[in-house]
C-alpha cells in the first residue's frame, strides 16, 4: 500500500538530509507507528506520501500512485485516497461539526444526497452523534479530534495518516482516540501514525518504524517505543 524505496530528501536550507536512504514497505490494512525524536524526519515522511514534498532521490508510491513522478493535476486524486489527522485538529471554527465533515466531501464535488447520508454515519462511528450542530469551540479537545477523524475518514480513504493525533490530549482521551484509530484500521484502512507517546506505542504492540537523523534505525513487527527508555 505504501512503499518508499531508497528515498532521500534534502532541503536547500539544511546541510543534513531530512530523510536519508529510507526504505519502508507497508501492506494494506497494517497499523504502523512512526516514532523518533523531533527533527528525525517523521513529518517529511508523511509530507512525501501526500506529495506536499517531492523526494530528492528514490521512489514513493501510495496505492497505485507513483507519488514522486505523477503530474500535478493528478495530485488531488492521490489525496482523495488519503485521510489526514493532526495534533492541532485543523477544524473550521465558523462551521458546525457536521459542516466541517461535509466540507471535505463538498470540495471534492460529492453530490448533496451522498453527503447528507454519509456524514451522520461517520459521526456515529466516531461517537459524535447528537453533537452534529455544535461549533468546534463548544467541544472538548478529544471531541474536536474525533471531528477531525470523522472528516479524514468520511471519504473512506485507503490510508489514514495521523501526525501526533494525541499530542494535545490527556492520557484517557488519547486512549479513546487510539481505540477509534483501531476501529478505523479494522475497516481495512491502512493507518500510519507519527507519535512521541511511549505508553500508547507500548500498549498497542503494533509495527514500529523508528527514525533517527533521517535514517530508519528500527522496524519491529510488534514493537514498543524503546527498550530502556
Amino acid at each position: 500500500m505504501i512503499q518508499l524505496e531508497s528515498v532521500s530528501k534534502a532541503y536547500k536550507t539544511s546541510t543534513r538530509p531530512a530523510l536519508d536512504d529510507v526504505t519502508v514497505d507497508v501492506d494494506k490494512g497494517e497499523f504502523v507507528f512512526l516514532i523518533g525524536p523531533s527533527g528525525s524526519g517523521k513529518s517529511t515522511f508523511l509530507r512525501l506520501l501526500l506529495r506536499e514534498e517531492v523526494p530528492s532521490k528514490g521512489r514513493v508510491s501510495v496505492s497505485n500512485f507513483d507519488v514522486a513522478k505523477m503530474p500535478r493535476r493528478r495530485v488531488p486524486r492521490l489525496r482523495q485516497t488519503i485521510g489526514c489527522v493532526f495534533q492541532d485538529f485543523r477544524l473550521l471554527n465558523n462551521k458546525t461539526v457536521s459542516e466541517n465533515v461535509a466540507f471535505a466531501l463538498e470540495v471534492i464535488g460529492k453530490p448533496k444526497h451522498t453527503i447528507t447520508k454519509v456524514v451522520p454515519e461517520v459521526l456515529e462511528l466516531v461517537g459524535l452523534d447528537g453533537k452534529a450542530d455544535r461549533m468546534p469551540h463548544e467541544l472538548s479537545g478529544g471531541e474536536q479530534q474525533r471531528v477531525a477523524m470523522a472528516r479524514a475518514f468520511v471519504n473512506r480513504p485507503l490510508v489514514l495518516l495521523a501526525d501526533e493525533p494525541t499530542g494535545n490530549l490527556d492520557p484517557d482521551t488519547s486512549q479513546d482516540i487510539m481505540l477509534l484509530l483501531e476501529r478505523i484500521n479494522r475497516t481495512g484502512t491502512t493507518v500510519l501514525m507519527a507519535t512521541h507517546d511511549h505508553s500508547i506505542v507500548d500498549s498497542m504492540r503494533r509495527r514500529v518504524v523508528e527514525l533517527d537523523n533521517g535514517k530508519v534505525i528500527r522496524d519491529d513487527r510488534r514493537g514498543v517505543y524503546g527498550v530502556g527508555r
Partner: protein
Amino acid sequence: MRASFVFSEVVTGLRRNVTMTIAMILTTAISLGMFGGGLLLVRTIDKMQASYLDDVEVTVYLTQDISANDQNCTAEPCSTIRSSLENNQAVESVVFEDRDEAYERFQRIFEGQPELVELARPESLPASLHVKLFDPERSDVIVQEFGDQPGVANVDDQNKFLDRFFDLLNSGRDGTFIVAAIAALAAVLLIANTIQVSAYTRRTEVGIMRLVGATRWYTQLPFLLEAVVAGVIGAALGVVGLVGVKYIALDRIFEATGGAIPNIEIVDILFPVAPVLLGVSILISAVTGYVTLRAYVRT
C-alpha cells in the same frame, strides 16, 4: 462541480473583505467609466467627421480682375479653370458664385451683425468656384494644382480648418484613454491585492481543501470569481455613471453648442459601449486573478 458551494464561498469572501471589495469595485467603475467615455468620444468624433465632411468644399477664389469683369465665368481664364476643375477625376461638382451672390451669402451669414454688413461692399468680395470633391480628404490635390494658376487669388480648403478642430477632439479622447489606463492599473493592483488578502484570510480552508484532494478549480475558482464578480459590478456602475453624466452634464453642454456636436444617445452607451466595458472588465479581472493565484497561492 457544486455551483452552490462555489457561489457561497464567493459571497462570503466578498463580504469578509468588504472595504477592499468596495475600493476594488469603485476603481474598476471609474477606470471603465473613463474608458467608456473615451469610446463614446470616438463615436462622436466619427459621427461629426462623417456629417461635416459631407459638406466640406474647396473654394477657389478668383482675382479682382475676373470678379469685376467676368460675370458668368465664360471668358478666359475663368472658363479654363472651371472646365479643368470639372474634368478633374476627384471633383464631384463645381458651382460658380459671382460677386453679387457672394454678397448675398455674406449678408445671410452676418445677419446678426448689421454693422459688418453695412461696411461690406459687393466689390470687396471675390467671385469664386465652389468645388465639391468625391473624397473631401483629398483636397490637397486641388490646392496644389490650382493655387498658382493665373486668375486664382487663393484656394481655401475647409478641410484644413476641420483638421485642427478634430485634432483638438482627438487629443481630448487620448487624454481620456490615458486617465482610464492609469485608473485601470490601480484597479488591477487592487484586484491582485484583494485576492492575496482573501487567500490569506482563508488559508485554513484552502489548506484543508488541498489536503482532502480538492482540485485546483475548487480551491481557486472562488477567488477568481470574487475578482470577476467585483469586475462585473464595477462595469455596471461604470455604465450607470456614463448614463448619469450624459443626463446631468453632456446633454446640456452639447445643446449649448447648437448641435455642432451631436448628442450622445442612450443607445450609444448601451451598445456597443456597455458590452465592451463588461467584456474588458471580465477579461482583466479574470486574468489578474489567475496570474495572482499562480504567483502567490500554493496549490
